[in-house]
């Protein structure tokens, strides 16, 4: 049953992601990326990660992409011809070849996946009993306490970096 939802959502995610790099107009690219985010959010729902799914839409599709669109419109970014119209076909082919190799490698990996993953402690029954959001909160403050705190320093660095680079001299 899951396949009925998984396949169209995955195809949508891949297709819109391809449009992000193939379309000419940066605004269309940004809108295609919004589509990718929605498709991903659907995949998260399928995995019963409701919180992550909602956050994906609110933060990425909502806040970040709106900001992207503002920047694109304010800067009036020019229309670049897509890569296949530029005269570097050898590189494009090389890139596509490498992508095909990677896809093949992954296909082999998943095909020969004899031990189908490891059953972790977070089964859907357990997640539903505790509550999706509650469980994430608990994990962040217990098992992943230190990575969580490290992230705050990383965000600080990002802010400082943006300030340094954006400030007038």
């Amino acid at each position, binding site marked *: 049953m899951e396949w009925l939802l998984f396949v169209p959502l995955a195809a949508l995610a891949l297709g819109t992601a391809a449009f992000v790099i193939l379309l000419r107009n940066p605004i269309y690219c940004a809108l295609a990326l919004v589509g990718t985010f929605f498709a991903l959010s659907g995949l998260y729902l399928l995995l019963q990660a409701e919180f992550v799914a909602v956050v994906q839409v609110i933060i990425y599709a909502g806040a970040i992409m709106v900001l992207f669109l503002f920047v694109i419109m304010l800067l009036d970014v020019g229309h670049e011809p897509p890569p296949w119209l530029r005269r570097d076909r050898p590189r494009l082919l090389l890139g596509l070849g490498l992508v095909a190799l990677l896809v093949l*490698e*992954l296909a*082999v*990996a*998943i095909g*020969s*996946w*004899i*031990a189908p*993953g*490891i*059953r*972790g402690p977070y089964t859907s029954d357990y997640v539903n009993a*505790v509550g999706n959001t*509650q469980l994430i909160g*608990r994990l962040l*403050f*217990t*098992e*992943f*306490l*230190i*990575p969580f705190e*490290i*992230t705050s*320093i*990383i965000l*600080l*660095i*990002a802010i*400082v*970096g943006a*300030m*340094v*680079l954006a*400030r007038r*001299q």
Partner: protein
Amino acid sequence: MDLVLPRIDWAPLAAMLPVAFGGLAALVGDLFLPAGRKRFIPALGLASLALSILVSIGLWGTVRFSVNDAVVLDRFALFSYLVFALVSILSILLSMDYLDASAPDQGEYYSLVLFSTLGMMLMAAGGDLIVIFLGLEMLSLALYTLCGFRKAELRSNEAALKYLLLGAFASSFFLYGIALIYGATGTTVLRRIVAFLADGRPPSTLLLVGTGLLLVGFGFKVASVPFHMWTPDVYEGAPTSVTAFMIAGTKAAAFAALVRVFLMALPTLQVQWSAPIWVLAVLTMTLGNLVALVQNNIKRMLAYSSIAHAGYLLVALVAGGSPGATSILFYLVAYALMNLGAFAVIIALQARGQELLSVADYAGLGFRRPVLSACMALFMFSLAGLPPTAGFMGKLFIFSAAVEGHYHELAVIGVLNSVVSVYFYLRPVVVMYMNEPAIERPLVPSSAAAIWAVALSALGTLQFGLFPGRLLDLARQSVAALGG
């Protein structure tokens, strides 16, 4: 449901805290210091690094794990902290007069240097792939900004943008690798991965692909061929003090993490990962050295040389086991000293903001600046791997580890490469002593702090070249957990 907060063991974090607080203090201090007193900020950075070194020495020998193995305290982590602190101290000394004294961004510069040092420490001490990734991001984010620090210079902007785009690309490979490893083993904690693999069942393809993707991510960071494309442009465009920091620091951190992941957590897969790394090592050594032959810009030459050195270090990784890991640690110290020393000379020789970047600029300096030129010659000898320098000892240990691990062909290729490299390392030296300068440049007094950095590096290069025993012993203790 009530939440029981985990008890935090502070010992594994103790050496990081001074660096983290130093970074914060540099930011805040900048606000309150009057324009003439900005020299206080680098001094503060040096003090926090010195404190971190003292803590590391005090903790030597302790083994502890923090919450859920996120950060590990062992001799390997502490040894790496000392290397990073050395790199960071020398880089701060280099920067003190290189940055315009009246530049408004002093606080941010030094705080980013300290935060990237913190990122390196997390990479070396991460007991969880997620923490190693976060350390990598912390290091990289700070470096992206530092590369673009000279906003008015186009090359600096280009360096920052290139590094950001390719760095983000590399990070996504790394994350993908972590995700696949999590899928295959059910954990990202290194100790649990070891336990999972201990029962001797054949590794699933999923795990192997994950490991391969992780290797690609690391390959970008250590600038190994074919993931080296960004290196020359970024190292050339970034401000010289930042290039020095990156060339020594990023490599040290990435190799510390490589040893922790590949030699400590995944030794059971060595049969599988040693073959691709063998290929990477040969390509990296050879291409780095051959392309360095034709470089005229000294920063670009050192960038290709750093690629070649990544190749030598990969040889040690293939050799594996305790000898391989020991020689990696020893080489990282030697590598940091000789590279930072060479960059310190470049900065000390600059005249009125005019850097001597082309090899021809060094003509005739041998007699006009005898001491600095002699030091430059020493660092170049060391980079080429000639005795009696630390670089020679480092290469000796790497190649003997390769022979011990029955990789004779790698040792031979490595030695041949070193012979090739002698040509381009000695070219600046020859130019300094044999050529007449085309134009007379006025002699300008050098920055005192940069001279200190030159002196420290020269001392270290000679010390570990003549008496390598003690450092080698420390390195051997640091990887004792590996056995063998």
